[in-house]
């Protein structure tokens, strides 16, 4: 039955080459921890992606309860964490995942750096990887405000104040992030939009580029 449906679609759209292109490659011995345990350092990139998936999924569930306005933001997080079944697990995964994704990405960056894997022809992939790093930091900064407790509020206030001290551009950055005279209702909705729509969209586009380049260029050879 499934095979019949697949063949019916494949005859019309020729989809086999698309996924065979992803599936049909082999993993060389020098990056396979099953053969050389020290090759576990090559797992960090995959783990970063895995935790990113956890972040996307848990974040999608969090938005079912979260309300991005200054009256209800804290209350909705409080309700989600203390009243909703498994809410504490979902929010916990998103909270700890946010730190772990930074840790894993940091380790992955160090692995690529110290194995010299960013050298020609893979320079562009390194640059895209660093852009992913910056987007992740942006996601961390915008997400930190959303629970709207004192820790979130004052960290954001200080962060924006530091950004505002940049010469020439500081004022514009402050207006862009804050949206008003103080960290308030405008800031919260802005950070929510950035955290949930803009930055994830950029992240997915960059991840697509990152993975496309890995497939195109292959894994760097053994040292």
């Amino acid at each position, binding site marked *: 039955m499934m095979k019949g449906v697949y063949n019916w679609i494949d005859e019309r759209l020729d989809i086999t080459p698309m996924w065979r292109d992803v599936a049909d490659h082999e993993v060389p011995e*020098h990056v396979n921890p099953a053969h050389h345990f020290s090759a576990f350092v090559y797992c960090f990139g995959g783990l970063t992606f895995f935790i990113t998936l956890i972040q996307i999924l848990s974040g999608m569930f969090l938005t079912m309860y979260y309300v991005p306005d200054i009256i209800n933001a804290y209350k909705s997080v409080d309700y989600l964490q203390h009243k909703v079944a498994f809410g504490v*697990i979902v929010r*916990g995964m998103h909270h*700890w995942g946010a730190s772990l994704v930074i840790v894993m990405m940091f380790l992955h960056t160090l692995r690529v750096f110290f194995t*010299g894997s960013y050298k020609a022809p893979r320079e562009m992939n390194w640059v895209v990887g660093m852009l992913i790093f910056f987007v992740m930091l942006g996601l961390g900064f915008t997400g930190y405000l959303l629970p709207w407790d*004192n820790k979130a509020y004052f960290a954001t206030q200080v962060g924006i104040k530091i950004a505002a001290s940049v010469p020439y551009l500081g004022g514009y950055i402050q207006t862009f992030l804050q949206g008003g005279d103080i960290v308030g209702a405008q800031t919260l909705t802005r950070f929510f939009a950035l955290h949930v729509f803009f930055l994830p969209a950029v992240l997915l586009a960059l991840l697509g580029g990152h993975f496309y380049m890995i497939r195109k260029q292959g894994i760097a050879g053994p040292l």
Partner: protein
Amino acid sequence: MAHGPKSNEKIVYVGDSRVIKRSNKPVAYDYAAYPGKSEVFIPNFLLKEWMVAVVALVGVLVLVMSDPAPLGYPADPTNTSFIPMPDWYFLFMYQLLKYPYASDQYVVIGTLVFPGLLFGGLLLAPFLDTGKERRFYRRPIASALMFLSLISVIYLTVFSWHHYTKELEATGTIPEHIKAEEERQAAKKSGQPAPSAGKTTQVAAIVDESDPAAQIYQKSTCVSCHGADLKGQAAAKIPALRGVGDKHDKAGLLAIMKNGVGSMPPGQYDASKAQGLSDADLDKLADWLAKQKKAQ
């Protein structure tokens, strides 16, 4: 094409004759370029990767269950005693701004120069380190710079946290998310419903609004900052007088009127008297303000 009665027609995709076929594409190295025990990605290697992912997932869940995500008290812009602290991965940049050579008139060094050099260097690493050599011990400059950056970032992060804990000790502060969690646990133990966090954000009602002291308040100098509705000004960190009776008694309120507190200037008592209020009026006012307690 595809108009005939033939039902077993197979669509064959052909190239576009107008597009010149390129032949100098970079040749991707495939696994065959590296002799050894290579393994197919799907399904063999992916299943092994999934096992690693499951172990990581168990680790995450253990962490989630042992340490629930923190949640303090609702954001209160008028709170002046809160020690601001960014998330841990921003601490190294935050700590940098505390050193005299990267703050005040040199703040550009802390906000632009150091982070710019660090992130700019990382971003452009492949174009700065262009040699063919890949082993890190054969690339002394690149590796030394990376080790130096690593050590500085770790040092700054650790000491930022160290300063924070010292500051907490010096001010006798318990971080709010810990305090809030303890309150929730205590409420749970005593069988009370968990303290509803929303309550603290609610604006307290004015007690005894018809009291003649409410009229005295409108004539005093208090109004100019704390507002005719006693709500204060959150943006300027001027606290609301609604519920002020929870924090100060009558004597304390009179002292504040005379001597000021925090950023509130002294001499409001005499200034109000200059506006035509008597000592008896101000006594009534202090009485009334001391009665401003939040409804339980």
